[in-house]
């Protein structure tokens, strides 16, 4: 349609048009990158742990003096926890999924092989599979006879069997579908220890909850670790019973002996919230920036279009007097805006890629997929259209009589 005259009018009064196009371009560049980061961070913070988080909590106790009868204490504690009404199972554990501190020990195919698969090492004298509600995809849980005691101050670690996560199974044996029965070596500080895989769990998120897929690398050892610190994982029968059970469990444990204090009593959902607070805060900030940018760019379009309409009232009146319909005037402004927005979008696509390159160089950030650019471009195009509707409507409402009035 009438693009050529619009274009030539635009080229004659270009400052405003350039400003709007520049604004659209910058907004597109920033919004596409920001939304990409938002999605990345939110996806990261929503990754499954393999644990039914709504019914699991952990309770940590710290000793105020050296405890001698650690093994007996751990047994009594777990029995006490299991006796609390509502508790399905409880287990001593050396670490908590997403808890931000724990053990990492490498696994390898051969002895003295330093090309290790690094993975989170879980140790428990109880069944983590049952307590955390993990899904066994192959093999079995540990047998009572497979458990060993380990006191770091007195001897070396010992174990014959391990349960690995599917991720670690794939890392160790990329080409095999079944790994139960396979032997691997665990690199302990005291040397390489041969262990046999007895089971594979679908998923168990490591305490470090890395950003990479290594978050699911890990294996469970049937080991009672005789350390001073105590962490118990507890599974409850239903989510709404959690607060009551947590309270009862805490009271029961603290009632057992007076030489320790409570360090933590939190649900795994709370652990997740703490772990991913920075990611969620970044996402929140970027969402705010995105909304702010769209509002400001939208208001810019409204402001500039209103100015043009005001400046061209007489011209519009003349056009109307010469027979232009309201629809034609509306179409004129919509087309004009579409041209400017489109020019801005083309520039913005380039800028978006440039900005992404800068960000990739400055911080660890993956390349921007084109879908984000395309999606953001579509949003901006629509925004421009919606923003110009008001002023264009007012332009269409200019009566033809304006033309005949004095300047």
């Amino acid at each position, binding site marked *: 349609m009438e693009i050529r005259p619009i274009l030539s009018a635009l080229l004659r009064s270009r400052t405003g048009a350039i400003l*709007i196009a520049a604004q659209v371009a910058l907004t597109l560049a*920033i919004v596409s990158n*920001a939304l990409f980061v938002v999605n990345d961070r939110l996806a990261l913070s929503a990754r499954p742990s393999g644990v039914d988080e709504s019914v699991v909590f952990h309770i940590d106790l710290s000793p105020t003096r050296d405890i001698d009868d650690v093994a007996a204490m751990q047994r009594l504690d777990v029995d006490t926890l299991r006796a609390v009404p509502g508790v399905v199972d409880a287990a001593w554990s050396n670490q908590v999924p997403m808890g931000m501190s724990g053990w990492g020990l490498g696994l390898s195919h051969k002895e003295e092989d*330093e090309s290790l698969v690094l993975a989170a090492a879980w140790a428990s004298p109880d069944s983590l599979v049952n307590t955390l509600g993990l899904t066994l995809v192959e093999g079995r849980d540990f047998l009572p006879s497979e458990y060993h005691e380990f006191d770091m*101050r007195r001897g070396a670690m010992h174990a014959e069997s391990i349960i690995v996560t599917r991720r670690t199974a794939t890392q160790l044996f990329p080409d095999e579908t079944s790994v139960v029965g396979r032997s691997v070596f665990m690199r302990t500080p005291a040397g390489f220890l041969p262990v046999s895989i007895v089971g594979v769990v679908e998923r168990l998120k490591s305490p470090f909850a890395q950003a990479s897929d290594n978050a699911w690398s890990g294996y469970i050892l049937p080991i009672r670790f005789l350390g001073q610190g105590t962490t118990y994982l507890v599974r409850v029968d239903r989510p709404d019973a959690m607060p009551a059970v947590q309270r009862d469990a805490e009271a029961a444990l603290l009632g057992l002996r007076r030489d320790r204090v409570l360090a933590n009593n939190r649900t795994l959902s709370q652990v997740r919230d703490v772990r991913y607070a920075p990611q969620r*805060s970044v996402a929140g900030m970027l969402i705010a920036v995105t909304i702010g940018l769209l509002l400001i760019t939208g208001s*810019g379009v409204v402001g500039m279009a209103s100015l043009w309409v005001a*400046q061209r009232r007489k011209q519009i009146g003349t056009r109307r007097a010469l027979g232009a319909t309201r629809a034609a005037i509306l179409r004129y402004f919509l087309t004009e805006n579409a041209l400017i927005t489109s020019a801005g979008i083309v520039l913005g696509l380039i800028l978006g890629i440039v900005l992404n390159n800068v960000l990739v160089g400055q911080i660890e950030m993956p390349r921007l997929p084109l879908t984000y650019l395309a999606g953001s471009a579509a949003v901006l195009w629509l925004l421009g259209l919606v923003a110009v509707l008001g002023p264009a409507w007012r332009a269409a409402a200019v009566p033809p009589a304006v033309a005949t009035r*004095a300047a």
Partner: protein
Amino acid sequence: MFAYYLRLGVSNLRRNPALTALMLLTLGVGVAASMATLTVLHVMSGDPIPHKSERLFSVVLDNGPDGERGPSQQQNLVPYRDVRELKDGAFGLRQTGLYGIAPAIDSGRDDLPPFFAAGSAVHRDFFAMFETPFAAGGAWTDEADRDGARVVVIERRVAERVFGSAAAAVGEDLVLGETPFQVTGVLDGWSPLPRFYRLSGQDPFGDSDDVFIPIAAAVDMQMDPSGSINCSAGGALEPGFDGLLRSECSWLNYWIETATVAEADALRDHLRAHVEEQRRSGRFPYQGEVVSARNVMQWLDFLQVVGSDVRLQTWLAFGFLLVCLVNIIGLLLAKFTARSSEIGVRRALGAPRIELFKQYLIEAGVVGFAGGALGLLLTVSALWLMASQSPNLEKVARMDGTMLGATLALSIGAALLAGLLPTWRASQVRPAAQLKSQ
């Protein structure tokens, strides 16, 4: 003339309230977003001890096996045996080993159950090196350092909690676990941001330490380190705490203060001499550069204390401000264009272009000032929001005088920059064309 233009600028703010509000809001939001993120970045990347950070070196010795080094294999701690040897070597002005401990404090009072404290085991030089402010008492003696005496320096809040006041604590015994430690000094709320001296295993912007005890005492009492233990260097780890002390596992920091900045090279030579000495007993198999001594800012950079997300936010916030500026250029252009006839009259009455340029630029500056005031308000709210959103931002999301001034300056500067084009256009208005038309 400045005062005259200022008065005109202020009264013109009222002229088109909707346009003015939009302009101030745009500027305020843009400035607030930039300043809030910049404040966090500024505090996070600040120098915690500016007057001597170039003379404080954190030492790391790479005791890993020979071979390629990837970024994940870089060590950032030192084994105990090297700390002991280096401390004996006593290079530089002062030196201290350092590791985190988490003892339970038992006040013995019925109304105060035992609680856990975060602390560091250090040498006595620690206090002079890092210039910790004392509210009462002081550091322990050299003898206490050597003998591993049961002495302790505590933070004011612990003193007040257990003994009632800082002064009352000095000379008293504080029971850590089951052992009484005599309080020699009370620190007066020492909380460097980031907590550069010990970054292993905790939030660099979290709470400061509650207690400090001599390393020799901590080792003697076999206090487990609360930070990380890195045993990737290989070698045997015998059971027990003694095994850890003899092992190649790294779990301590080692800091050296030199008398001058130039002494850094001599320090590295000294460390190389130590490594050569140790190689005789088969240690340090790695053939590449084993020794590193980083000053405070290099150390913070090496450990990437400022997360990349903070930088990302700052980048995007300034991009946001840029868009706000483009928007304001458009709005100012509209505002000034609407006043073409006034410009024509002023020109006719004898105003040179430069005077109109001044007048309109000052008007843009007034917009900047008002927008800055709004931006300041929004910045403070944004920081408050950030602090409440994420506890690890609580200490860094704080405004100081510099940032306050910077906010206003940024806003005025941004508005002046945005005002340049519209102002130039305004001063180019041809007076004759404006005087005829109504």
